[in-house]
């Protein structure tokens, strides 16, 4: 509006101007003609006296214009020249900014990938996950429940139940080894909900979704490439999964991200949702744990959908006793992507923000020093008619140019950083693989570069441009006294740097300490010299528990006989994290309702489990070979179980009735009864950070209901655990060459993976803290060294006059030490105030942990002291004669 008005008023101004100029010349001509000159001659004279009409009119018009593009370009050219003239200053400033901006861009690109970017599906905002909830614990619904929830709800377009299973894949044309892969068991609706279409072929029919008709497969594009070399005539070929042939009927895109199923690998093959023949029958209503996703009708909110499904679930609980106590939760699918990364990312964002502030302070300080040197130039330019605002504009142009170059270099650094992150990212944080520099990251980087240039540019420019034309003369041409104000500003900036870097240091220290706490815990077993491996025995060749047990016993025996092996166990549970929940009753204390039955982990192993892992036996006895398949069922319980369910009594000899896994509720008539023969020490079973749940451990051979084809093998080695791998692989191949030797890891690796998030956070925080401290050190060093350089004459004079060295040192050290003390004080206050940010990420460490606060302050204090003393010593070794003569 005002722009338009300005345009119109400008037009009037120009018209006025032209008329005025004409009138001027006309008046002169009139005067000359009146004096007797012929008109034509008078016109020439008048014009000559006036000067170049066009040029002058143009100049007059110029006054009203915005600074033209040309003059901005001129500023930029001048700025570029000034920066080129000071290559050291420019490269230090650009590098500092690039590090600060690059760190921000890298972390933001992760944040973008995990929190901001829309999911890669067409109706991303309507996609939700549906969970069953009991006593605050959530799990996936059972197939019949999911079906009924979908059918009876009014808020869902579609609700689909599916799962992903690890299965054995036989060799394919372009991969010669058998391997375990993750197979998606999905109905066609799965792809419809996600808005995916096959690239070739077709989706599953409802016929194929029925057990028995399910030997058809869809391949992901990546799998098709890696395992079939992208062969054109792929449809109709077969792929062997768990020893059975599946006909390939289509290829689907690689759209489904790894995090979708909280796994560390992508799904390569999809087969119909037919986990077993009974999955849709009433007996499977208690068989929870399937993944359920849904597409909301458009306009439906999460709350509405939740209310709707909760009503349906309440109805189900009334009709089916096994559903009693189960509620429903609906959460946006995007939430699965964030997982537990949100607090980590926010913390990291705060950390890189602080790093950038430190970088800004540092560059501001550099600029102040530099503008001090350039005082004479500024004074000269002011004397030549450049106004203060003109000078400011020039200085700010330099800042903006610096930060844009820094931002560009920052993007390059971020790109490198993301590459490194991707390489070292733990498989558990699969979201990282989607981090990349896209338009939003570029925009963000551009924006923070702009803000940065204001952050570091404005104060120094204001201080630098405050110069009178006479200043150049007054100062006798020496390179500026700096000015008290500018010195205070420099000091304040260094204080800020020290404070911010202390906050970073404390953050990193806290997370590190928490990580150490996690790792230093007693896991309940001996972590060293343990090798683990995953087995899957497909039903086609190992039909039924007896066959599975037979294979396991033979394999375990061969392993135990391998040189370098101390002991070995084959187990269905693998610490430090497993969930194999079951309801039970202690005999003689029946529960009144199925909803009130206590739950515990129930895991089955062979008789070597406790021995192999080195778990403490607290009471009673361990399993033995005397506990045969046909003998009385025996069980071990952990300490937590004994304390919670059998307090103040001896658990040994007590009996437990297991309600079998809910899937099998209707299939077995009587609940198996187990006798407790011993109590073992607690072993971590809910990860490292949480206290273990109660455990009941039974024998595989005595509990055929629990004897599935997937097993973990744990080997206690007497030599380095990795050294044993080739011989184990040989033993397995000798028994069954078609079984993949999969997921070979040491226990150390498994435990590390559990702490992947924490290590990732700690590592990045440590990097940023290191960066921050380095910049702060440069800052402290800078002001002290600058002070020494500035006051060379004063120092030399003092030395000449016999001032003791200590007083000279303290004179120059004062600025650095004061900045250190004030900065550390403020940093402590800041860290205390910001403690909440890190609280949720810490384990066993208070966010205000005095030891960490004290230790970090001490470290920083020492570093600041060193950064101060080094330039100070230069003051002490100053040659006073030389110095005074040279000036």
């Amino acid at each position, binding site marked *: 509006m005002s722009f338009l008005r300005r345009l119109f008023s400008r037009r009037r101004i120009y018209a006025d101007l032209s*008329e*005025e100029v004409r*009138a*001027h010349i006309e008046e002169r001509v009139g005067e000359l003609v009146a004096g007797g000159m012929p008109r034509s001659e008078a016109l020439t004279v008048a014009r000559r006296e006036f*000067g170049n009409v066009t040029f002058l009119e143009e100049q007059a018009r110029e*006054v009203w214009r915005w600074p033209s593009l040309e003059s901005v370009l001129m500023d930029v050219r001048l700025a570029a020249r000034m920066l080129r003239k000071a290559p050291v200053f420019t490269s230090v400033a650009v590098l500092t900014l690039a590090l600060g901006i690059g760190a921000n861009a890298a972390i933001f690109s992760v944040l973008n990938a995990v929190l901001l970017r829309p999911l890669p599906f067409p109706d991303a905002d309507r996609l939700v996950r549906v969970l069953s909830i009991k006593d605050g614990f959530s799990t996936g619904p059972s197939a019949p429940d999911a079906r009924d929830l979908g059918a009876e709800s009014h808020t869902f377009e579609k609700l689909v139940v599916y799962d992903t299973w690890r299965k054995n894949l036989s060799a394919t044309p372009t991969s010669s080894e058998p391997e375990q892969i993750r197979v998606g068991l999905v109905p066609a609706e799965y792809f419809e909900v996600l808005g995916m279409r096959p690239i070739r072929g077709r989706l599953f029919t409802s016929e194929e979704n029925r057990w028995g008709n399910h030997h058809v497969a869809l391949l992901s594009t990546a799998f098709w490439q890696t395992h079939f070399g992208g062969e054109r005539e792929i449809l109709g070929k077969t792929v062997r999964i768990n020893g059975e042939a599946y006909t390939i009927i289509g290829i689907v895109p690689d759209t489904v991200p790894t995090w979708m199923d909280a796994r560390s690998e992508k799904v390569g093959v999809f087969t119909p949702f037919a986990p077993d023949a009974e999955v849709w029958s009433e007996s499977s209503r208690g068989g929870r744990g399937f993944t359920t996703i849904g597409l909301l009708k458009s306009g439906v909110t999460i709350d509405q959908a939740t209310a709707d499904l909760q009503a349906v679930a309440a109805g189900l609980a009334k009709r089916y006793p096994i559903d009693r106590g189960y509620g429903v939760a609906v959460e946006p699918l995007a939430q699965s992507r964030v997982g537990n990364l949100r607090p980590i990312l926010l913390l990291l964002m705060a950390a890189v923000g602080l790093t950038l502030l430190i970088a800004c302070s540092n560059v501001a300080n550099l600029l102040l020093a530099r503008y001090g040197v350039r005082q004479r130039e500024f004074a000269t330019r002011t004397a030549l008619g450049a106004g203060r605002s003109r000078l400011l504009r020039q200085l700010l142009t330099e800042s903006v140019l610096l930060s844009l170059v820094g931002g560009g270099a920052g993007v390059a650094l971020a790109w490198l950083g993301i590459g490194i992150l991707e390489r070292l990212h733990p498989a558990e944080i699969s979201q990282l693989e989607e981090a990349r520099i896209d338009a939003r990251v570029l925009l963000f980087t551009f924006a923070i570069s702009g803000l940065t240039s204001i952050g570091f540019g404005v104060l120094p420019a204001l201080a630098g441009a405050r110069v009178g034309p006479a200043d150049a003369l007054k100062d006798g041409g020496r390179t500026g006294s700096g000015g008290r104000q500018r010195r205070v500003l420099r000091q304040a900036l260094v204080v800020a740097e020290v404070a911010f870097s202390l906050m970073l240091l404390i953050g990193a220290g806290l997370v590190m300490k928490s990580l150490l706490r996690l790792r230093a815990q007693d896991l309940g077993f001996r972590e060293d010299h343990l090798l683990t491996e995953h087995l899957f025995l497909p039903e086609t060749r190992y039909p039924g528990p007896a066959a599975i047990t037979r294979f396991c016993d033979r394999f375990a025996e061969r392993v135990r006989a391998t040189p370098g092996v101390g002991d070995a166990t084959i187990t269905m549970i693998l610490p430090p994290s497993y969930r194999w929940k079951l309801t039970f009753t202690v005999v003689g204390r029946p529960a009144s309702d199925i909803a009130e039955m206590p739950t515990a982990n129930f895991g089955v192993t062979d008789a070597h489990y406790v021995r192999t892992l080195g778990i403490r036996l607290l009471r009673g006895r361990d399993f033995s070979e005397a506990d045969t398949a046909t003998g009385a069922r025996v069980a071990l319980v952990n300490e937590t179980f004994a304390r919670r369910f059998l307090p103040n009594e001896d658990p040994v000899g007590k009996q437990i009735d297991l309600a079998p896994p809910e899937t099998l509720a209707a299939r077995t008539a009587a609940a198996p009864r187990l006798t407790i023969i011993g109590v073992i020490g607690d072993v971590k079973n809910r990860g490292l950070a949480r206290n273990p749940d109660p455990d009941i451990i039974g024998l595989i051979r005595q509990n055929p209901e629990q004897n599935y084809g997937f097993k973990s093998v744990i080997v206690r080695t007497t030599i380095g655990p990795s050294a044993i791998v080739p011989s184990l692989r040989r033993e397995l191949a000798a028994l069954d060459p078609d079984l993949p030797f999969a997921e070979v890891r040491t226990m150390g690796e498994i435990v590390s993976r559990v702490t992947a998030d924490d290590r990732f956070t700690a590592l990045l925080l440590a990097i940023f803290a290191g960066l921050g401290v380095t910049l702060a050190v440069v800052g402290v060093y800078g002001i002290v060294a600058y002070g020494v350089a500035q006051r060379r004459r004063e120092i030399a004079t003092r030395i000449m006059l016999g001032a003791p060295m200590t007083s000279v040192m303290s004179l120059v050290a004062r600025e650095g030490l004061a900045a250190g003390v004030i900065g550390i004080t403020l940093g402590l206050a800041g860290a205390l105030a910001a403690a909440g940010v890190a609280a949720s990420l810490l384990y066993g460490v208070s966010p205000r942990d005095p030891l960490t606060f004290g230790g970090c302050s001490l470290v920083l204090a020492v570093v600041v002291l060193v950064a101060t003393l080094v330039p100070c010593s230069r003051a002490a070794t100053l040659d006073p004669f030389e110095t005074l003569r040279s000036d």
Partner: protein
Amino acid sequence: MKSEHQDLFPGVLEMMILRTLQRRPLHGYALVRHIKRTSNDLLQIEEGSLYPALQRLLKAKLVAAEWGTSSTNRRVRTYRLTKAGARHVERAVSSFERMLEGIRLVLARGEA
């Protein structure tokens, strides 16, 4: 094209304009005549250079202009000092005089 004229320090022309307008409002032609006359024709200002200077002063709101009729019955634009202009002249003249004095002294000593 400008070489035949003596260049002035930036801001000098503006100062002279303001100072002249302080006495009475004038239009452009009269203004330039007045400055030439009072400087004993020592300052060879290009008449036209008055106008960019006037535009600058207009933009800075140190002078105001309006169209009227001159004594010779021509349609002319008359400039007068604004309040801000008057204040500016008071402040600037004294510092200007100091600077001129300084320059004069330096030049004088250079001769000696």
